[in-house]
């Protein structure tokens, strides 16, 4: 019999925090544009490698590198939207056409990253952190940084969605685009800001994962399916659901390590996703 190890809690929370951040970006874009962006994982990779260039190639401190990674990823996402997705939207392309196109974008970008930085794993230049012990749980400085950063950003997302007119316009556009337009909302501008926020959060998630583990060109793509699981778990298009889904998936993945090999972690995420699609397809938070 395996007794519950509180260590899983902290591991689950940190993994969940990064998944949640990236999943919010994915779900916001889905809400506003109604298509599943398969290239979303690459935004995470771009964020992580942008910070790598700043941190390792230019020798900047990791905090500054992380901050620089955000605008780089945002500009990248906006450029992709402008040259790929926006023209398709204008021609009235459906969700399927956009989805397939995003698969293409994903492959191209992933291979470009591999061409530039090779498929070797990379690390940030970090001082090795000492683990401290709180109430018998071992927690590293990196884990604390991940947790605090992801929680602060989630509070930020909440304030944005509820306290600013941009947030309310985003919710309105996600709910019903033509009604939002008839209410005088500039939905194209809402779309752009959604890319900015979604790509920015995802870039931070990429850097956090890079700090926690290593960088490789497939890091984002590998996480994409886990992000899907989180998004579906919380109800597609619902940012709060993505937060919840991210933490649930992260937590269950870490706890599963007690029972089965760690290499099956993603499989656990999918079992939850499939089970939920069968029993509660509207997501954990219900049909909001």
């Amino acid at each position, binding site marked *: 019999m395996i007794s519950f190890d509180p260590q899983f809690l902290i591991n689950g929370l940190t993994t969940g925090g990064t998944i949640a951040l990236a999943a919010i970006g994915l779900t916001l874009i889905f809400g506003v544009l109604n298509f599943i962006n398969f290239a979303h994982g690459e935004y995470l990779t771009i964020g992580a490698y942008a910070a790598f260039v700043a941190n390792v190639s230019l020798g900047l401190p990791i905090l500054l590198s992380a901050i620089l990674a955000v605008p780089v990823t945002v500009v990248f996402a906006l450029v992709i939207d402008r040259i790929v997705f926006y023209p398709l939207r204008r021609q009235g392309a459906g969700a399927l056409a956009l989805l397939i196109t995003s698969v293409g974008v994903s492959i191209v970008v992933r291979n470009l990253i591999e061409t530039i930085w090779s498929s070797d794993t990379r690390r940030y230049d970090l001082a090795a952190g000492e683990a401290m012990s709180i109430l018998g749980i071992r927690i590293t400085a990196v884990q604390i940084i991940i947790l605090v950063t992801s929680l602060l950003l989630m509070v930020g997302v909440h304030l944005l969605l509820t306290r600013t007119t941009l947030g*309310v316009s985003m919710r309105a556009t996600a709910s019903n685009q033509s009604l939002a337009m008839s209410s005088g909302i500039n939905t194209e501008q809402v779309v752009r*800001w959604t890319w900015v926020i979604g790509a920015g959060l995802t870039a931070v998630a990429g850097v956090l994962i890079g700090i926690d583990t290593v960088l490789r060109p497939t890091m984002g793509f590998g996480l994409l399916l886990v992000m899907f699981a989180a998004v579906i778990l919380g109800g597609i298009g619902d940012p709060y659901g993505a937060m919840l889904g991210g933490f649930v998936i992260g937590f269950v993945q870490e706890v599963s390590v007690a029972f089965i090999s760690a290499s099956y972690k993603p499989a656990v995420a999918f079992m939850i996703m499939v089970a939920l699609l069968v029993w509660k397809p509207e997501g954990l938070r219900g049909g909001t």
Partner: protein
Amino acid sequence: MSTESLLSVHGLRKTFGGIVAIDGLELEVKRNSITGLIGPNGAGKTTAFKTISGFHDPDEGEIVFDGQDITANSVQAIVDAGLTRTFQEARTFPSMTVFENLLIGHRGHRGEGLLQSTAGVKTYASDERTAMERADQLLDYLQLNDRKDKQASQLAVGERKLLEIGRALMTEPDLILLDEPMAGLPADVTADIIEYIERIRSERDQTFLIIEHDMDTIMSICDKIAVMDAGKKIAAGTAEEIQNDSAVIDAYLGTESP
């Protein structure tokens, strides 16, 4: 009451592939009128609405609103110019409260810029206050006060219709296009909505253009009625004139019971 045209549509044409949905439509809506747009199914009424409100770009023709050519304008620019619309089934933002639904329509909102909505807090706050005051006034006017913090999805169908009209009024329009406002409403609610539309016209100086299949509604509230068939206007006039027009009887009343 002035008799100038608030909206004039000339030679409007809209095709989808090989299908001609609107074929040289002419339409005049006088300021402060309630104008009806009727016609058999497939006559092009809804396409006309979509084209006028900017959801479709016309192939040919000209749309002049309040002296301004809005033919090529975006939906948002048209709303800013003072023309908004409602949709066939009562459309609201279901997961938002009644109050939030109204705030969405506030035209002054600096909303869609991150900088405007976070920086410049002072003007933002005063603008937000104005929006809230206006939303409160509209809640009063539409007698939806006690529904203020309810989610729109919890409203009865008639209340949802009123909320939709309220959201349209929040955009400070001169002209509201109503797409089948009475569809799916029980008779007593229809009577209420008719009363509201007439009150809003006279008390708030609004102009309405209405698509409606319910002939009793159309005949009772419209000053002018335009009849469309196969993408063209085939007649226009008062309810009485329309009812006695032979082209209308042939195309519409003769083939389909009203």
